[in-house]
């Protein structure tokens, strides 16, 4: 992903986005493309199918900056996005993953 911008380094808080999407090969590109072309770094990504596999759920860990509200609106506009929910950074989905990321 992109190097973090000054804008983002200044951000203290993080947010977790929970995004329900249609499961097909292009959907991840659509979502991360919105962030990368605005030089908005995505710190963490998790994605797995849900139910019968027609849908997936994507979890994004992002820095909170002034642009986040606009980013969420842009994500909500995507055809393959069903819903976006915003959580605080302490949401447990990313908490137990640290074991897999030890240097």
């Amino acid at each position, binding site marked *: 992903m992109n190097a973090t911008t000054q804008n983002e380094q200044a951000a203290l808080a993080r947010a977790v986005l929970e995004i329900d999407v249609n499961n097909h090969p*292009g959907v991840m*590109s659509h979502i991360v493309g919105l962030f990368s072309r605005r030089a908005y770094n995505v710190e963490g990504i998790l994605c797995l199918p849900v139910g019968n596999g027609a849908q997936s759920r994507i979890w994004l860990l992002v820095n909170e900056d002034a642009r986040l509200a606009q980013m969420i609106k*842009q994500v909500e506009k995507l055809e393959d996005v069903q819903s976006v929910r915003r959580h605080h950074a302490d949401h447990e989905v990313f908490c137990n993953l640290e074991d897999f990321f030890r240097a």
Partner: protein
Amino acid sequence: MTETLTGAQITVRLLERQGVRIITGYPGGAILPIYDALGQSTVIHHVLARHEQGAGFIAQGMARATGEVGVCMASSGPGATNLLTAIADAKLDSIPLVAITGQVPKSMIGTDAFQEVDTYGLSLPITKHNFLVSSTEELLEIIPRAFQIAASGRPGPVLIDIPKDVQARAIEVSAWPQPGSRVLPPPADAWAIAEAASMINAAQRPLLYLGGGVVHSGAANFAVDLAEKANLPTMMTLMALGTMPVDHALSLGMLGMHGAPCCNLALDECDLLIAVGARFDDRATGKVAAFCPNAKIIHIDIDPAELDKIKAAHVGITADVLEALTQLLPLVSENARKNWVDRTNELKRDFPQQLPGIEQPTSHFGLIRSVADCLDDEAVIATDVGQHQMWVAQAYPLRRPRQWLTSGGLGTMGFGVPAAIGAALAEPQRTVVCFTGDGSILMNIQELVTAAEEDVNIKIVLMNNAVLGLVHQQQTLFYGERLFASKFKGMPDFVQAALALGISAVDLDQAADPQAALRDAIQRPGPCLIHVSIDAEQKVYPMVPPGAANRDMIGA
């Protein structure tokens, strides 16, 4: 009845069922199955462009003139990459377009096959949505959906990339889907509408700010009704020109970088800005912090992401503009607002758009006036991009929505000629004028061949100053007059070039009576190039320097 049809035949049948009657494109290996099926269609007329970008802009011209979804086609690889500029242009101006591209067979995707390019990936950030079709069956769902997406909400381009084997494979079709059509958004929030109405009723110095969304939603009459009922002085963005007749008593004209001085000055005095289908583009607002600094803002837009994007709205309303205005109109009280209307009339009198030389028929403004004098409001006015575009925006008496076709957001040189061809194909009863420059026309001059082949009624008014005008102007004003790469040393004989490409041409420079020659050229049916030399030293004024506040206009 069950039929056995190939993906290509299904595609063409779905386009026919969709009501598409003109498709423009350019064939190549990976889209040949669709072209083979298209050749069998008795209802769709295929217009062969001479470059895929031309095809994209012809489709845009059809869409902009009619409001219907335009359709263009290209093959894989370079065919698809050549389409991209026209697709990006449609995205920025919210033009409904369906682009269909051929792709190498599925088994070869990712092998760097001949004429393979990642069309899906390339088109991702410049489309409203895009599809890579992975099975023939999916076409039955994707094609109607593409039309629905293109036409619904904020319109935009949708790309469908179809691998050759998906086109070639035959399946049994027993039922056809409904054609995709525009789905209306939920109605505007009644509470917000009431709040907006009370703000308008309470405002002392309100301004109505109309954008391209008013054209897209067909709401021009309602916007004018609102302005008249509440006496709201009105300004338009480049994209909205024509929504309120330019000579309407409440019209202040165009705002922004090259807008009317009275408009930009009125913004500083207003206490309420009512933005309708407009997106606070930087060319309209200038320095945002200094844009209508004392005003509250009501913002109505069909795209919720536009609200609060550039300027925070006091009341933001996500809705179709026409529907919102229908709700708003009865709640707004009649108000003579004499002091404010008098004040804006004073600004109009003291700081009008200057049109120097308009009485001389071969000056830049005079030429535009002379063309307008030959036409009525039924004509379509297209432009390319550059000085001529801004002069036409400033001086042409636009009075009808969809009368004005211009590349606003992307500002694509080369837009004009193919867009004019598209408008003329879609509305053959109209005369279509394309104002262009000596830089812009060369970017898609090959489409003169298409114009000749289709015998479209377009009049290309080429304002030739032998420089790249807006670059020349910026280098003169902001780069110490260091003119570099903006003066053309080689200059083609455009009249001979037009004749060689198969259309008629007239050189007003050589005409004994230029006005008579112009009138004759415009009134003669069929495509014609009208060449006029103009002065390279003329600037587009006023000009708000990039990044400056709108009140700080040069040449006002």
